[in-house]
């Protein structure tokens, strides 16, 4: 995997423009593309001209198989109740909450890439935003399952919303758990809408090159009659910019509220002001690890390295390194504050967490995978080696999962030693977790196959003027 195969071995078309263009000054587009070849290369996957790589079937079938775990896990849970999980007193929040926070954190990088990098004029977002947004949506879907299942009576999930019901009770709006409902609902809706708005012109591309009636019908309906009118584009760009402007504070607010689930309680080490920024940094850290995980196969099996260049991977690795350092600072800060506050309970709980407690090893797994291993990213050669990047991203996935695990099992060592307990997830906990991973892989595989995986419109606009584009992403300048 160290040497990437060029895009030319796709078998059918070469996707080369006739005229020879100079290489992109910033190395953000490779290959020799004009408007047509660029669009074809991305769109041909969706309209089934590009042969489906064997690896796609592997991913899809593995995903689908794992997703059966979700069916079995949820089925058994509904049959017997939350007792099938390892949760108990005092550890009433088990893997369900660990997985919830893990997934929603992964989702955040998608919004970060599309929204924040857009506002920051970062041109390199253009190649990543589409599949990163898809990642966000699927990750939030996986995340949303867990709190609902954890309620014990998930069929009453609608009680979370202020629905007028006949017993006259309303949600308790002063609770962070209730804020969470609104935050995640809003986040999912806005992400989905942002994604779809971005997709409309691309669906129009697919409609116009569709190979049969079915494709033309489906993509035509999704494109809603988009015809690329200058007046429509003006409104579209403004909407896109404003959605990015709303999405940026939204992503911070969502993970802040997720951290409030913990920080507003009075559990030692949870009741900390570091939690919101620490959670947001962790979310971006985990999300970029997932972007790397998704980008590597897209480059490898779909030859997308023309658009997701080594430069993009380098940027992702650097963001991962930077946010990893922020997260590590959070770990340091937690211990420091416990010591500096002279609070007996805080300090004892810290010692339980990192040294004397039964789960000390989990803490050190977290430090190893989240703080120590990502330091390899300082080395230029490692950031350019896809295999190494992939493995470091894997380490971050493990680390971020353990981070939430460590936070959750703090509950096992409460203020009162007589109420101490132990927690071990059962096989049903793990099955459900694997099931959501399967659901994510399945949905993402289907997305790659049927929806343009990169934004054709934005990539075209991004091309240098000589190649037919507008020399970089201009939404910030043109949105009026």
């Amino acid at each position: 995997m160290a040497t990437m195969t060029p895009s030319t071995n796709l078998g059918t078309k070469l996707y080369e423009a006739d005229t020879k263009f100079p290489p992109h000054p910033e190395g953000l587009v490779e290959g020799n593309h004009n408007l047509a070849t660029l669009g074809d290369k991305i769109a041909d996957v969706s309209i089934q001209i590009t042969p489906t790589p064997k690896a796609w079937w592997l991913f899809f079938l593995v995903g689908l198989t794992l997703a059966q775990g979700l069916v079995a896990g949820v089925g058994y849970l509904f049959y017997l109740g939350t007792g099938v999980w390892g949760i108990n007193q005092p550890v009433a929040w088990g893997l369900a909450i660990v997985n919830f926070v893990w997934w929603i954190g992964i989702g955040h990088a998608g919004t970060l890439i599309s929204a924040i990098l857009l506002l920051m004029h970062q041109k390199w977002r253009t190649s990543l935003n589409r599949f990163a947004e898809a990642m966000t949506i699927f990750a939030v879907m996986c995340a949303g399952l867990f709190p609902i299942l954890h309620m014990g009576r998930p069929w009453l999930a609608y009680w979370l919303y202020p629905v007028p019901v006949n017993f006259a009770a309303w949600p308790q709006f002063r609770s962070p758990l209730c804020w969470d409902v609104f935050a995640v609902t809003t986040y999912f809706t806005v992400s989905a809408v942002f994604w779809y708005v971005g997709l409309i012109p691309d669906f129009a591309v697919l409609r116009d090159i569709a190979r049969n009636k079915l494709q033309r019908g489906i993509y035509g309906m999704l494109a809603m009659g988009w015809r690329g009118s200058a007046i429509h584009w003006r409104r579209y760009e403004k909407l896109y910019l404003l959605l990015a402007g709303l999405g940026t504070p939204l992503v911070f607010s969502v993970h802040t509220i997720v951290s409030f689930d913990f920080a507003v309680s009075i559990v030692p080490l949870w009741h900390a002001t570091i939690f919101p920024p620490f959670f947001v940094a962790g979310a971006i850290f985990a999300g970029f690890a997932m972007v790397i995980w998704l980008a590597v196969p897209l480059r490898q099996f779909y030859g997308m390295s023309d658009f997701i260049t080594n430069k993009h991977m380098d940027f992702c690795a650097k963001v991962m390194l930077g946010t990893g350092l922020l997260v590590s600072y959070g770990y340091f800060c937690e211990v420091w504050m416990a010591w500096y506050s002279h609070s007996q309970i805080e300090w004892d709980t810290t010692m339980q967490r990192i040294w004397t407690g039964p789960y000390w090893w989990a803490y050190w797994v977290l430090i190893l995978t989240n703080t120590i291993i990502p330091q390899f990213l300082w080395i230029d050669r490692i950031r350019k080696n896809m295999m190494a990047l992939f493995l470091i991203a894997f380490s971050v996935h493990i680390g971020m999962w353990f981070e939430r695990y460590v936070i959750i099992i703090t509950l096992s060592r409460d203020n009162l030693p007589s109420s101490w307990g132990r927690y071990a997830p059962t096989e049903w906990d793990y099955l459900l977790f694997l099931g959501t991973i399967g659901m994510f892989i399945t949905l993402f595989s289907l997305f790659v196959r049927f929806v343009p995986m990169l934004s054709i419109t934005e990539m075209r606009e991004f091309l240098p003027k000589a190649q037919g584009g507008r020399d970089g992403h201009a939404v910030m300048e043109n949105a009026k």
Partner: protein
Amino acid sequence: MSATHDHDETPKIFGVMAEFETADQLIDATRAAAAEGYTVMDGYSPYPVGEVADALGFPRSEIGAVMFIGGLCGAGFGFLMQYYLNGIDYPLNVAGKPFFSWPQFAPITWELLVLSAALSGVIGLFALCGLPQPYHPVFNVPQFARATRDRFFLCIEAEDPKFDLATVKAFLGGMNPASIAEVPE
């Protein structure tokens, strides 16, 4: 217009459409057409070209105002809903906090602001652009399929008070287009 004459009239046309190879050509053509006094026309491109909208006399979109109003409504609704439900309709005493504990209503107010601003923006876009639109005359021109690929189009519509088929054709022909077509209604 009486119905008896309809069948023997030439088919109505929507406008005349010129095809260009670059965005810059489209910008120039639109500016020239505006200078010539044409007002009812539209440019089509595979990606946004802001200068075309400027030349068409559409310097600002309405989306900002729509989203601002939508966001205000969402935030106002969210805040009052929480106060009414937890403070008046079913007063909840949580840790002795006042019923009107407004700082704790901030997160949901904010989330509903974002939600309603985003949704009103998207619905506003669809409504203002008239989407979904199953039929539009420009799609009758075969080469228009390349408007989502690599070509740029300018269509001067028959609605234009200055519209005269021969003059418009001659005018657009002078802009060095790749092709010119009449757009049947």
